[in-house]
C-alpha cells in the first residue's frame, strides 16, 4: 500500500477546495472534505493490516527534493510501529472530527475555507509523522503551524480571533526557530537529515553527555515545547479556543500539540545521549502538568478548562518521555486523542445547542436535555480523570505515573498530584454543566453525523486502553511490545507498579469525590471565598500570569521601541547629512549678495590670508 497516498488525499482535497474557492455546491465540498480524510483512514487501516501481517520491513518510498553537493533531502516516507500508531490516530480521529464538522459547520459561510484548512491540517500532520528525514518532517511541522493559524483565526471578522491566531503562530515559531538551529547543527555535524542515519551517527560520534548531543537535543526540545504548548511557551493554547470547536478537537487530539511528543519520541536516541536534556523534558512535563491543572481548576469557560487540561495531559506525555517510558508517552498520546476529541466534540454539542454559551455557570441541568452529549462528556471525563479499570485514560496514565515514580518520587508525586487535580477540575465541570436544575431549553436536535463520532469515540475512550493492561491486573503489555521495535522499552519496575496503580486509582476517585463536594454540596465555600484563596484563584485563572509577564517584559517594550523607530533611526543620519548640505548651501549662497564692496572685501581678505599662510609656514 503506497504510503504517500495518505497525506496526498487530504492534500488533494485542500487543493481542490482552495482553487475552486467556494464555487462548489455544499454537498461536493462535504464529500471532498470528509471523504478525502475518510479514504485516508481506510488506507491507514489497510496499511496497518499489512504491517501487522508480518511485513517486518518498514515501507519506504521517496522522491528526490534537491541534490546539492551531498545535501540531498528527499520527500521520503517511512513506516514503523511509532508512525503506524500516529497515522491511525491522525486519520481516524481526524476523520471523525471531519464528519462531525460537516454538520456542525453546516450553517457557516466559510464552509469550503474550513474544510480546505482542515484537510491541509491532516495532510501536514501525516507528512510530519511519516517523513523519513528531519527536513521533510519540518515541512509538515510548519504546515501544521500554518493550518492552526488559519483555523484559529477562522472567524476573522472578530479581531480577537485574528490576534489569537497570530499569537499561536508566533509563539510556536519561537520554538521553530530553535528547532531550525537544531537542524542546522545536526546536518553540519552529522552530515545527514535522514532520521535513521542521524540517530545511528549520533550514537557513534557523540559520547553521552557531549556538548553537541546536549545542544541538538535541547534545540529540538525548543521546537517540541512550542508546538506541544509546554512551559514556557504554553500561552498560545488557551487562546487558541477562538477557533470553531471541531478545530480545537483537531488541534488538541489528532494533530499539532502531539507533534512535539512525537518529535521527541522519534529522536529519542538524542535524548538518551543527553541526560540533562532528558531530565529537563521530565521536569518541564511535571511542572507543566501541575501548573496547567491548577489553572484548569479555576476556569469558567468550558473550552478553556479543556485547553488547560490538554496542556496538562501533554505534560504527562513529556514526563513519560523524560523518564524514558517512551511507549507510555505514546500510549497516553493515543488514549488522550480519543477522550480529548470526545470531550471537545461533546462540549461542542452543548455550546452549539445552548446558543454559543461557554460559561459553565450559565449552563446546568443538561443531563436529561441532551443525554448523548451528557454520556459522551461523562465518558470522556472519566477517561481523562483516569477512573480505574473501566477507562482508557487509567491504563495510560497509570503507566506514566509508575514509570515516573520509579525514576524519582518527586516526578511520581507530581504525577499523582496532577491526577488528583485532573479528577477535580473535570468533574467540577461535569457536575456544574450537567447536574443541578435545568436552566435553558436547548435548540436544534443533533443529527447523525454528530452522533456517530460521539458514539465511536466514547467506545474508544473506554476500550482504547485494553491494548496495554498493567501486570497487576493480569494483563500483558501488547502496546509497548508493539512499539518496542521502534522505541526501547521502559526499565522494569514490577514491584512499584502495583502500589502506584492502587494509589492512582484511589486518588482519581478521591478527586471525583472532592469535585462532588465542592460543586454539588457546596462544601469549603467559605474557605474558597476567603480573600487569599480568591487571589490565588485569580492568579491561576489567568494562567499564572505568564501572558501578563510576557506582555509587560517583551511585547510592550518591543512595541514601544518600534513605535519610536517607525521612521527608521538610520535615516536620520542621511536626513542630517542633507540638512547639513542645505545649510552650507545657504551660507555660501548668502555670500553672493551682488554687492561689489563685499566681493572686493572678500578678495582682499582672501589674499591677506593666503599671503599670511605663505609667509608663516
Amino acid at each position, binding site marked *: 500500500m503506497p504510503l504517500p497516498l495518505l497525506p496526498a488525499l487530504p492534500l488533494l482535497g485542500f487543493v481542490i477546495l*482552495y482553487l475552486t*474557492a*467556494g464555487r462548489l455546491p455544499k454537498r461536493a465540498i462535504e464529500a471532498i472534505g470528509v471523504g478525502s480524510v475518510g479514504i485516508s483512514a481506510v488506507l491507514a487501516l489497510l496499511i496497518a493490516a499489512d504491517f501487522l501481517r508480518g511485513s517486518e520491513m518498514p515501507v519506504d518510498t521517496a522522491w*528526490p*527534493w*534537491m*541534490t*546539492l*553537493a551531498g*545535501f540531498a533531502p528527499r520527500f521520503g516516507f517511512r513506516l514503523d510501529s511509532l508512525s503506524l500508531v500516529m497515522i491511525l490516530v491522525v486519520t481516524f480521529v481526524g476523520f471523525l472530527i471531519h464528519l462531525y464538522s460537516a454538520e456542525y459547520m453546516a450553517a457557516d459561510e466559510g464552509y469550503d475555507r474550513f474544510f480546505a484548512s482542515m484537510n491541509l491540517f491532516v495532510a501536514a500532520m501525516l507528512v510530519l509523522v511519516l517523513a523519513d528525514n528531519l*527536513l521533510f518532517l*519540518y*515541512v509538515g511541522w*510548519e*504546515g501544521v503551524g*500554518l493550518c492552526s*493559524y*488559519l483555523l484559529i*483565526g477562522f472567524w*476573522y*471578522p*472578530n*479581531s480577537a*480571533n*485574528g*490576534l489569537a*491566531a*497570530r499569537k499561536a*503562530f*508566533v509563539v510556536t*515559531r*519561537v520554538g*521553530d*526557530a*530553535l528547532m*531550525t*538551529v537544531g537542524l*542546522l*547543527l545536526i*546536518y*553540519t555535524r552529522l552530515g545527514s537529515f535522514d532520521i535513521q542515519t542521524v540517530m545511528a551517527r549520533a550514537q557513534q560520534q557523540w559520547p553521552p553527555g557531549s556538548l553537541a548531543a546536549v545542544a541538538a537535543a535541547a534545540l529540538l526540545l525548543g521546537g517540541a515545547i512550542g508546538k506541544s504548548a509546554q512551559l514556557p511557551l504554553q500561552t498560545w493554547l488557551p487562546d487558541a479556543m477562538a477557533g470553531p470547536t471541531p478545530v480545537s478537537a483537531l488541534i488538541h487530539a489528532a494533530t499539532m500539540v502531539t507533534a512535539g511528543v512525537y518529535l521527541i519520541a522519534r529522536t529519542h536516541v538524542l535524548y538518551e545521549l543527553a541526560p540533562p536534556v532528558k531530565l529537563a523534558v521530565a521536569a518541564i512535563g511535571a511542572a507543566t502538568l501541575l501548573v496547567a491543572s491548577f489553572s484548569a481548576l479555576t476556569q469558567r469557560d468550558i473550552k478553556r478548562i479543556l485547553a488547560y487540561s490538554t496542556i496538562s495531559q501533554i505534560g504527562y506525555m513529556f514526563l513519560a518521555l523524560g523518564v524514558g517510558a517512551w511507549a507510555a508517552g505514546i500510549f497516553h498520546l493515543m488514549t488522550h486523542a480519543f477522550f480529548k476529541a470526545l470531550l471537545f466534540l461533546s462540549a461542542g454539542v452543548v455550546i452549539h445547542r445552548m446558543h454559543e454559551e461557554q460559561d459553565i455557570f450559565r449552563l446546568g441541568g443538561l443531563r436529561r436535555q441532551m443525554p448523548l452529549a451528557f454520556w459522551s462528556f461523562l465518558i470522556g471525563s472519566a477517561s481523562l480523570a483516569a477512573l480505574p479499570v473501566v477507562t482508557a485514560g487509567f491504563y495510560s496514565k497509570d503507566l506514566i505515573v509508575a514509570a515516573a515514580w520509579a525514576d524519582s518520587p518527586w516526578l511520581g508525586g507530581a504525577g499523582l498530584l496532577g491526577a488528583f487535580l485532573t479528577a477535580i477540575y473535570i468533574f467540577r465541570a461535569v457536575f456544574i454543566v450537567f447536574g443541578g436544575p435545568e436552566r435553558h431549553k436547548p435548540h436544534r436536535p443533533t443529527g447523525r453525523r454528530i452522533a456517530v463520532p460521539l458514539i465511536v469515540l466514547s467506545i474508544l475512550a473506554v476500550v482504547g486502553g485494553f491494548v496495554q493492561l498493567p501486570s497487576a491486573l493480569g494483563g500483558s503489555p501488547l502496546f509497548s511490545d508493539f512499539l518496542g521495535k521502534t522505541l526501547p522499552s521502559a526499565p522494569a519496575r514490577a514491584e512499584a507498579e502495583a502500589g502506584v496503580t492502587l494509589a492512582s486509582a484511589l486518588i482519581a476517585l478521591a478527586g471525583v469525590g472532592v469535585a462532588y463536594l465542592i460543586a454539588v454540596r457546596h462544601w469549603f465555600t467559605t474557605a474558597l471565598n476567603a480573600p487569599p484563596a480568591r487571589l490565588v484563584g485569580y492568579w491561576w485563572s489567568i494562567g499564572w500570569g505568564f501572558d501578563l509577564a510576557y506582555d509587560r517584559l517583551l511585547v510592550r517594550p518591543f512595541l514601544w521601541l*518600534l*513605535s519610536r*523607530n*517607525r521612521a*527608521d533611526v*538610520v*535615516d536620520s*543620519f*542621511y536626513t542630517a547629512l542633507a540638512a547639513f548640505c542645505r545649510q552650507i548651501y545657504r551660507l555660501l549662497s548668502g555670500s553672493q549678495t551682488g554687492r561689489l564692496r563685499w566681493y572686493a572685501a572678500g578678495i582682499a581678505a582672501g589674499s591677506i590670508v593666503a599671503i599670511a599662510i605663505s609667509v608663516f609656514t
Partner: protein
Amino acid sequence: MTLVWLVLIPLLGGCLAWLAARRSPAWARWISLVALFAELALLLVPVTGGHGRWLAEVDLPWAPPLGIRFHLAMDGLSFALILLTAVLGILSVLASWTEITEKVGFFHFNLLLTLTGVVGVFLALDLLLFFFFWELMLIPMYFLIVVWGHERRVYAAIKFFLFTQGGGLLLLIAILTLSFLYFRQSHVVTFDYLTLLKIHLSPGTDTLLMLGFFIAFAVKLPAVPFHTWLPDAHTEAPTAGSVVLAGLLLKTGAYGLLRFVIPLFPDASVHFAPFAMGMGVAGIIYGATLAFAQTDLKRLVAYSSVSHLGFVLLGIYAWNGLALQGVVMQMLAHGLSTGALFILVGALQERLKTRDMGKMGGLWTSMPRLAAIAMFFAVASLGLPGLGDFVGEFLVLLGTYRIAPAFAAAAAAGLVASALYALLLIQRVFHGPPSGTGGAPPDLAPRHLFVMGIMMAGLVWFGMAPQPVFDAVAPGLDNITAFARIP
C-alpha cells in the same frame, strides 16, 4: 549575437512603444508585451556560440584606444537572472495595464529601458560597459518614480537617485583606479573583467578598492545601513516600478557582489566577510522588525525586502556551494513573492485609493480571491517550507552555519520576525471587521489572476522541485568560485 539581441530587444521595444503610443496607448502596452515575450523566447531557445565556461559570449571592440570592449557573456547565473527579468517584465506590463493611464508610451519606454539596463548588467564583462548599463538602469527608473509615482514621489525619486548615484560614483572611481593599477603593472589599458582578475594588489589597496565596489552594490542591495532610500522609492513608485525595483534592481547589487567584488578582491573579501555577514544578519532582523512597525502597506512590503536581501548578503559572504545556491534561489523566489505582494498592494490601492492599513480591514469578505492569494504570498514570504523562499533561506542558513554558527543562529531569529510582519499584513488588511471604505470593491480580474497564478506556480516549483534551477545555475557558480581563489 543572441546576447546582443537580448539587450537590443527591450531597447527597441521601448522606443517603438513610445512612438506607437501616439496612435493609441494600447499599442504601447501590446508592443512592450510582445517585445518581452520575444526576449523570453530568445532566452529559451537553446543558446549556442559560447565556449568553455560561458553559455554564450560576444566580444567586440568598442573604444580600442581606451581599452573598452563590448564584451557580453552569459553563464547559468546570468541566465537565471535574465529569465527572471523577462518574466517579471511581462508581469509588470500586465500589472500596469489599467493602473497607468497618463503618458502610457513614455512609461513603457522607461520601463523597457530599465530592463535593458538590467539585462546589460547581468551580461557585461567589461567593467566600463557594466558601469554604462548600471547607470542606464538608474535614469529611467528615476522617471518612473517621479512621473507616475504617488504623493511624495519627488522626494523619493531624488533620494533614490542620490543614493544610487553616490554608490555609482564610488564604483566608477574604483573601476578607473583598478584599470590604472593594472596599466602600471602590465602597460595594457583594459577594463576587461577576465584580464583584471589577474591583477595583483597590495593588501591596503585591495581593501579600499573592494570597499568602493562593495558600497555601490550594498546600496543597491540594500544592506543596512544603506537601505533608507528603499522604503521611500518602493512606496512611491508605481506598481511596475516597485516590482522591477524589488524583483530586479536589488538583484543587480547581489549580482555585482557575486561577480565582481569577491572574485576581484578575494583576500580583502575574506577579511571583510564577518562585517558583511553581520550587515546581512542586521538587515534580516532590522528589516523585519521595521516592516512590522509600518502602517503603510507598501512600506511594510518594502522593509520586508530589506530582510530578505539580508539573507542574500549573508549567503554571499558564507561563500560555499550550499549558501550560494541558496542566494540564487532566494533572489528568484524573492522576485516572485515580493513582486506579487507589490502587485497585490497596487491592486488594493487602485480599488481603495489608500495604502494606509489603518483604513483597511475585513477585506476578505469582499475580495476573497485577492485575500486568499495574498495569504499565499504572505506565508511564502515568512518562509513556509514547500515554497521557494524557504529553500533559499534554509540553504543560506545551512551554508552559513558551517562557517559561522553564531550568524546563522542569529539569522534564524528572523523566522520569528518575518512571521510577525507577514501575519500583521493579513490581519490589518483582510481580517477584522469590515471597514467602510467605499462600499464593496471588486475582486481581482482574470488578468490579475493569470499573473498571480504564474507567480504562485513559480514559487511552488522553486519550493518543491528546485533541482532544474540548481542544475542551471551550478556551472555559473562554479565559474565564479573558480575565479575567486578562496579556499
